[in-house]
Each structure stands twice: as structure tokens, then as C-alpha cells.
């Protein structure tokens, strides 16, 4: 059974559809761009939060 599963997995390694002119790495790149955008926003949110924190500490 284990060997059968391995053979099945190996079969899956070969693409079912031929994408002769497509770029298989483009999805990873787009995802990296999207993730970078959100992490970049987080950078500014953290900065604003720490500035607000500092403001309150100074008030005290």
C-alpha cells in the first residue's frame, strides 16, 4: 500500500496540464508582493502605536 501511494505521489509530480509558456514561479512572486505590502503596513502601524505609547508615558 505504502509503495502504491509513493508511486501515486510520483505520478502527481508530473503536471497534468501543459503550461508551455506560463511562469510557474509567478504565483510565489505575487504572494511575496502581497505579503510585503501588509508587513509594510504593519511597520507603520507599529511606529504609530509606539509613538502613541511614548506620548502617554510622557503625559504621566
Amino acid at each position, binding site marked *: 500500500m505504502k509503495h502504491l501511494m*509513493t508511486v501515486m*505521489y510520483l505520478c*502527481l509530480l508530473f*503536471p497534468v496540464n501543459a503550461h508551455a509558456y506560463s*511562469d510557474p514561479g*509567478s504565483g510565489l512572486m505575487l504572494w*511575496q*508582493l502581497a505579503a510585503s505590502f501588509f*508587513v*509594510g503596513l504593519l511597520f507603520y502601524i507599529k511606529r504609530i502605536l509606539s509613538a502613541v505609547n511614548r506620548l502617554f508615558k510622557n503625559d504621566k
Partner: protein
Amino acid sequence: MTNSWKHSIRDPAGRLHVMGSNLFRQVYAEYAEVYRGLLESTFIRELQDSGDLVQTALFHEEPYRPSADDAAEGHVKLPAIGNGDILLTHKKIPFVSFPAEWPPEMLHAAGQLTLKLSEQALAHGFCLKDATPYNVLFDGPKPVFIDFLSFEPHEPNDPLWFAQAQFIRTFLLPLLVNTELRLPLSSLFLTKRDGIEPSQVYHMLNPVKRLMPPFVTRVALPVWLSAKAENSAGSIYRKRTLKNSLQANYILLAQFGSLRRDMERALGKKSKLTGSWSDYNDTCTYDEHSFANKDVFVEQFLMNGKPRRVLDVGCNTGHFSVLAARHGAEVVSIDQDPAVIGALWKEASSENLSILPLVVDFARPTPALGWNNAEYPSFLDRSRGYFDAIFMLAVMHHLVVNDQIPLDEIMDLASRVTSRYLIIEYVAPDDPQFKRIARGRDSLYQHMTSDFFELTATNYFRILGKREIGNHHRTLYILEKSRHVK
């Protein structure tokens, strides 16, 4: 290895030359200034001192024309280089291995080293232009980054690491499909140079798993997004810069951290030893006395023979590899079970033993791979004549029965791999282990008597010593290669 091997042929900044026992890296003129400067930086010096980066030094700056006199006088032979090119030398890693031969633990260690170097390079204004396991070799159990030309200057306002997709294809996804779907790493790396694509992993997953982390972000989303990317041609790859370099740095460090966590999680899911050999020590037929006899015999050989380089074939838990390493030998241990090799790598790493454990089946050793079959030499090409001793302990009967290799062939190959000694265990056909794997075909192996074994062995070796170890007449032999055998 000869210079006909095609090492590092894809790099636009330079190439590697193997000249006898020396390694030279030619850096082309337009990149020479960058790498000369990088070589002098404290960052690179510290990486070399820690052993994370291969030892590298500037060797020659002028075009060199090797002359006949040089060869006659035994000078180091140098490759010819162009005007303005520079020549670097690298310390040679004792035994070269490839990702197809690594257990998941070693692939994980190579990936973590790549991320560590990426982070450190970023702090010094550099990044890695590629991220593949082929940039890492193992010196004993320690991973060493070998591709000096992978470092390139990094624009501080650039928030993207272009090598990230390659890192995911060649480190993270192979590790995930290995630990989650039990796909052997060798089946990936023997057939693919650049790892596995998210779309290929996507088809292996059931719909629920596709939505589970880390598959949802590393596989499913990239696959769904790739349909959109088809319409954007090459525009997604254009260079992007942010106004704030601190923000760009923050984004990159977050990417490295996220990859590191996913790698940790992937390896964490790997269950305890479950390989076919993992319980060998519990199930094999040795009694305590016999095993102690075997131990003493091998230890005496190590003390008297003082081998410098040992190949332990079918090493199992690596008991005798550890013994050889503790006696000062540099050991390469091979077994077909990734579970035992992974465990041995962990032991060698934590105890700092000079052992390189590899997932290699001696009956089907790693073939030559890559462009022209000349980028990555076969296991036997790397092994022939390199070792001065081979251990084949409790292995012979498996090769004879499971792999149906005639004894003469086994002796012939062993005599080509070792430059001197073969330590081999003879297991008789009436041994319970032999009978178990013969599965009722005992009559096929009745000729495998000890006399037949010795007669065959002496075609290639002379017998220096032998001892019955008290376990179903199992006998250990110290054989020395005959002078007439090349």
C-alpha cells in the same frame, strides 16, 4: 574529480575550476571589484571563522599563462583567466554530498544556514542572489555555505528577496511534502534540479489540507494568484523600492523570520523514527556477548589499522561509525533509511563527531546528475579510492538476497572503493536473519558457505584476520586489498 566536471556553470559572475586537489573560483572582471571588497570585509571574515562560510582567499589577480615548466616543476596548475578577472581559492570540503542524499534534518539545517546568512548579509548591505541546497555542503555533520558568489550588493530600499521563491521550491516545499506526505527527498532531488512547484504540491493535497497553514500561504494562495499573474507578463518582477529603507529592512527580516518558522514547523511534524531499520537493534538476533565480541574486533582493527577515511555501508544506527570517528577517522556513513541517517546526523552534530551520514543505497548508489551528467558526480565516482577502509557489517546477506548481487560483484566493487581495508561480516545461510530475508528460497543460497566466501574474497583481498563472534557462526574478517587489484 577531474576538470571535465561542470561546476557552477550557471553563475554569471564566475565559475569554479577543479585543478587536481585544488579548487579555484574565477571571478569575471566586471564583478572583481565587488568580490575583492567583500572578501576583505569583517562580515565575511567572521563567517569564515565560524565555519559557516567556506574558507576563501584571493589567489591571483593577473592573467596567468600556465607553462610546461610549471607542470614539470610540480607547481600548482592554474586555470587561465581573462584580463581583469580574479582568482580565489577555496578550502576543499572533504566529501561532497548532494540534497538527494540528505535526510530531512540535513535539508532543514542547510535551509536554516541559508536564512541565517541572508539575515547577516542584509545587515552589511548584501543579500543572497540564489537560495538552493546546492549552495551548501556538509563538512562532517556541519553545513557550510560554499557559494561565495551568491552574495551580491543589496539596494537598501528594496523590500523583496528575489531568491525567496527558489528557497520555497528547494527547501520548504520538499521538506513539507516529505514530512506531511512521506515523499522521499531523493525522489524529488534526483528528478528535479530546482525543487518542487506549489502547483505540483497543490495536486497532492486534499481540499482541507490546502487551507491549513503553512500550505495555504506557501501553496494554495500562490497557485490561485498565478492565474492572475499570467496576465501581468513580466511586470511583477520589476524592481521595487520604498522611500523608507527601515521599512524595506523590516519587511525582509519579517520574510526571513516567517520562512524560518515554517521550516521549524515542517521538521517538527516529522514523527519519531519509523523507518524499516529503526528498530533493528531491538529485533536483530545478536545476543549481548556476540555484539560485545563484534565491538572488540572492530575496535582492535581501528587501533591497529588506524584508517583515516572510513565508509560505513548500511550503517544502521551508526554504532560502528561513532566508534571509528572516536578513533580519529573521518567517516561517511550510508544507509537507505532516512530515519536512521537523520538520527545519526543529530548525534554527530551534537557530539561534534566527524561523521557525514548520507541516505545512499549501496546497491543503487546516486547516479551522476545535471547538465551533461557532469555537474554532480555519482556516489561511486566520489568514493572510488577515497576511503582506506570500508565497513560492511551485517550487510552482505542483504546485498546477496534482497538485491540479488553475486558475492563476487560485491567483493569487486568493495575493492574498487577502498584503497586498503574491508571489514566484512560473513552471515551463513542458516542464520535466522538470512533465512528470514530469503523467504523460503534457502536452496538458492546453499553455496554461500564460509569456504565459498573466503575463496571469493581472496580473488580481490588477502585475509589479515577473522573471528567468529558466537552468533550463529557469524564471522568478522579484516581483508586487505591485493596488490594486483587496481
